[in-house]
C-alpha cells in the first residue's frame, strides 16, 4: 500500500487517493467506447484497475466494497468464466496459421486428464474477454459446453488473470495448472521466444515475460525450455547495452523490463547479466566486462526528469515502472534521481483521476494509471520499523507483490 508519509517527505505534489479510487471503480463498472479496441484485452484492464485499487489500499478497508458497490466474488467469477480449459472434442482440420500444420484431433502428446474419456483435450489458461460467445461459468467444466474452436487462451490474459485472482484473495484452486503448463509448451517457439496463442501471433519478449510470470505463480517451470528462453534473451542484447523486443531490435524500456523480470523470475539474473562479454578486466581489477554494467548505464541514461523509453524519445510515466523496475531488480534503482522521477509521475495525475502518459492536459488511461501507481509503490523506501503500513514490502518482495499478487501455488 502506498504510504502518504512518503509523499509528504519527498514531493510537493500529493497523491490524490480518493479521486483515483473513484476512477478505477468507475472503470471496473464501465469503460467508454474508445476502449472497444481493447475488447480482446479486457482482462488486462480488470488487472490494471484491480491492482491499482489494491496499491491504493482500497481492499484493506472492507467498508469500501459496500461504499463503492464492488463485489469481489463477482469479479472472481467473471475471470473464471474466461477459462478456456476443459475436455472437448476438437473439430477436424483446425489449421494453425502460424505453422500451417493441421493439428491432429487424436493428439497423443496431449495429456489426457481423464483416461476414461474418449474426447480430446482442450487445454489452456484464460482468454481476455467474452467477445466470442457463451461464457463458461465459474463452476461449469463440462463436455457439453459448446466450445468455439477459435476460442484460444492468450498467455498475457493467463498472466493477468492469475495476478488479479490472487490480488482479490482467491486461492486459485479452480485454476487448471496442468492445462496452462501444457499449453505453454505449444506456444514456445524453437528460438526460445513465445507467441501468445496457439492459433498464432507475433512472438517476442512480452510473451516471454508472461510465460515466466505464469510459471512463477504456478510454481511450475516444466512448461518451458529454460535454456532456450535464456538464449533468446541473450540475443536481444543491443549494441548500446539495452534489450530489444526481439533480436536485432532497438533497446526499449518495455522489453528491458520484460527480459530483466524474466531473468529474475527464472533465478538467472546474475548468470546471464554477469557473463563475461570478453573485454577482460578480470577479477583482479574488480570489474569484468558485463552486460549488467552496460544495462545499468542504459537504464539510468533514460532519465530526463521522467523516464524515456528509448534514447532521444519523450518521457512517459509507464517507463518509470519498466525502467525503474528493471533497476530495482538489479538492486540499484537509487542510481536514478528518485525524487525528480516521483515529482514527474505525480504531475501526470489528472483531474479526472488516474494518470496520463505525460503532464499537460492529456486524458488518463488505465495502463499509465496502473504503471504510475505500481512504480510509486515499488519505489517506496523500506518502511521504518515504527512507521506502520509498510510491513508487507521488503526489497525482494515488491515486484512479486505488485505484479504477481505475492502469490505462488504451493506444490
Amino acid at each position, binding site marked *: 500500500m502506498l504510504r502518504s508519509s512518503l509523499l509528504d517527505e519527498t514531493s510537493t505534489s500529493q497523491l490524490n487517493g480518493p479521486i483515483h479510487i473513484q476512477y478505477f471503480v468507475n472503470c471496473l463498472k464501465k*469503460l467508454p467506447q474508445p476502449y472497444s479496441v481493447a475488447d*480482446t484485452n479486457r482482462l488486462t484492464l480488470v488487472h490494471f484497475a484491480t491492482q491499482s485499487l489494491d496499491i491504493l489500499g482500497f481492499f484493506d478497508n472492507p467498508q469500501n466494497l459496500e461504499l463503492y458497490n464492488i463485489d469481489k466474488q463477482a469479479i472472481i*467469477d467473471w475471470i473464471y468464466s474466461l477459462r478456456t480449459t476443459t475436455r472437448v472434442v476438437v473439430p477436424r482440420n483446425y*489449421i494453425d496459421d502460424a505453422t500451417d500444420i493441421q493439428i491432429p484431433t487424436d493428439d497423443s502428446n496431449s495429456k489426457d486428464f481423464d483416461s476414461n474419456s474418449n474426447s480430446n483435450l482442450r487445454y489452456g489458461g484464460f482468454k481476455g474477454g467474452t467477445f466470442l460467445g457463451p461464457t463458461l461459468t465459474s463452476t461449469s467444466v463440462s463436455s457439453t459446453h459448446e466450445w468455439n474452436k477459435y476460442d484460444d487462451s492468450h498467455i498475457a490474459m493467463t498472466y493477468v488473470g492469475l495476478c488479479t485472482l490472487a490480488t482479490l484473495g482467491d486461492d486459485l484452486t479452480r485454476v487448471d495448472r496442468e492445462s496452462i503448463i501444457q499449453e505453454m509448451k505449444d506456444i514456445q517457439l524453437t528460438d526460445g521466444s513465445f507467441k501468445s496463442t496457439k492459433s498464432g501471433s507475433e512472438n517476442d519478449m512480452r510473451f516471454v515475460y508472461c510465460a515466466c510470470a505464469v510459471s512463477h505463480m504456478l510454481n511450475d517451470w516444466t512448461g518451458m525450455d529454460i535454456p532456450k528462453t535464456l538464449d533468446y534473451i541473450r540475443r536481444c542484447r543491443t*549494441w548500446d547495452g539495452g534489450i530489444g523486443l526481439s533480436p536485432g531490435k532497438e533497446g*526499449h524500456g518495455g522489453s528491458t523490463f520484460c527480459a530483466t523480470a524474466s531473468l529474475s523470475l527464472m533465478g538467472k539474473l546474475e548468470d546471464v547479466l554477469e557473463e563475461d562479454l570478453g573485454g577482460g578486466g578480470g577479477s583482479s581489477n574488480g570489474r569484468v566486462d558485463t552486460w549488467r554494467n552496460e544495462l545499468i548505464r542504459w537504464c539510468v541514461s533514460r532519465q530526463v526528469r521522467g523516464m524515456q523509453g528509448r*534514447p532521444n524519445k519523450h518521457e512517459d510515466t509507464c517507463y518509470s515502472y519498466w525502467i525503474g523496475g528493471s533497476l530495482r531488480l538489479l538492486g540499484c534503482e537509487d542510481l536514478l*534521481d528518485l525524487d525528480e522521477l516521483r515529482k514527474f509521475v505525480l504531475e501526470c495525475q489528472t483531474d479526472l483521476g488516474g494518470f496520463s502518459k505525460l503532464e499537460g492536459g492529456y486524458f488518463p488511461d488505465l495502463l499509465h494509471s496502473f504503471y504510475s501507481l505500481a512504480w510509486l509503490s515499488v519505489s517506496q523506501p523500506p518502511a521504518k520499523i515504527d512507521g506502520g503500513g509498510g510491513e508487507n514490502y521488503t526489497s525482494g518482495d515488491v515486484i512479486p507483490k505488485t505484479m504477481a499478487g505475492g502469490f505462488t501455488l504451493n506444490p
Partner: protein
Amino acid sequence: MAADLDLDLVFHDITPIPQDDGPQPVCGIDYARSYVKAMDYFRAVLRKDEHSERALDLTHVCLVHNPANYTTWHFRRQILATLTLESTATPVTTKYNIDRVKADLALTSKLGGANPKNYQIWYHRQSLLEGLVKNDEEGLRCTDDELKYTAAVFEEDAKNYHAWSHRQWIVLTVNNPTIWDSELTYTDELITQDVRNNSAWNHRWFASHRAKKVPLLSYEKALLEAEYALKVAEMDPFNESPWRYLIGILKEQWRRREENASNFTELLDKYEGSILKMKNDMKERSGADGCSCVNLISAFIDILEMKHNTSAFEEAANFAHHLGMQHDPIRKKYWLLREKELRSRV
C-alpha cells in the same frame, strides 16, 4: 464496399449471437451499436465456421471497428486460405492467391494508417507476405514494395518500432548483399534527416552486421563505421546515439582484440585523440564547455576504460566525478559510483 454492408440483408439466414458477458460483467465497454451488431453476426458466423465471401466481408466490417481483434484477423486468414484452395484459377503455389494478398495488403495499409502501432495489423501483413518476400525476381519486386511501404510509415513517424521490425524481417528474409548495402545507405538518409533518430542508428548496426551474420566487423569496416559515428557526433555532440554507436563499434573490437591487438590499440588511440580534440575545440566552436557535454565525456570515459591502464582509470574517474558533481546532476549517484569503481582499479 465491404464496410457499408447491410448485415441484416446479407446474413438474413443467420441468427446473431449476442455477447454473453455473464451476470455481472467487469470492465464492460460502452460499445457502439453498429459494433455490437457486427460482432453478433461475427460470433454466429464463427460458430458456423463459414468460409465464404460474405464471411470475409463481415471480418472487414468488424476490423474497421476493432482492428486489434486477433481472432477476427485469424478467422480472416482461415477464410482466405479456404477461398484460395477452392479457387479454380491458376494452380495454387502459395497459401493465399496473389490477388487476395494484394487486396489484403491494401486493407492493412488502410487500417494501419490510423493504427500504426497495432501489432495485429503488422502480423497480418507479415502472414500475407510469407513465401512472397524472397530473393528472386518476383520476390524482389514484392520486397521493394514493402520497403517503400515502411519508408512511407517512417515519413509519418521515423521511429515506429513495428515498422522497423517489419523492415528488419523483410531484409533478413531476402538476405542478399545488395539489400544489406542499400539498407546501410538508407540508414544514412534517415540519420541525415534526424541525427537523433536512435531507431535509424539501430538499423545501421543491424545492416552493417547483417543481423548477426557478421559477428565482428573487419577492422576496415569498423573504422568506416566509427568515422561515420564521430562525424555525426560532431554535428551535435550532445546527441547520445552516435556516441553509443561509436562505443558499440569499439567495444566489439575490444572484446576480440587478441585477434588483432595492434590494430585495436591504433583504433582506440585514434578515437581517444579525436574525442579529446572535439572536447577542447567545443568552446571555440560553439561556446559550450566540452566537459559539460555529457555524452561526449561518457564516451571518453568508456574509451579510457578500454585502455586499461592506471593513468587511464584515474583520468576516467576524474571525468566521472565532474559529471556527477557538476555536469550531469540527475545521474549524480551513477557517476559517483562509476568514479568509485574506476578509482578502485587505480
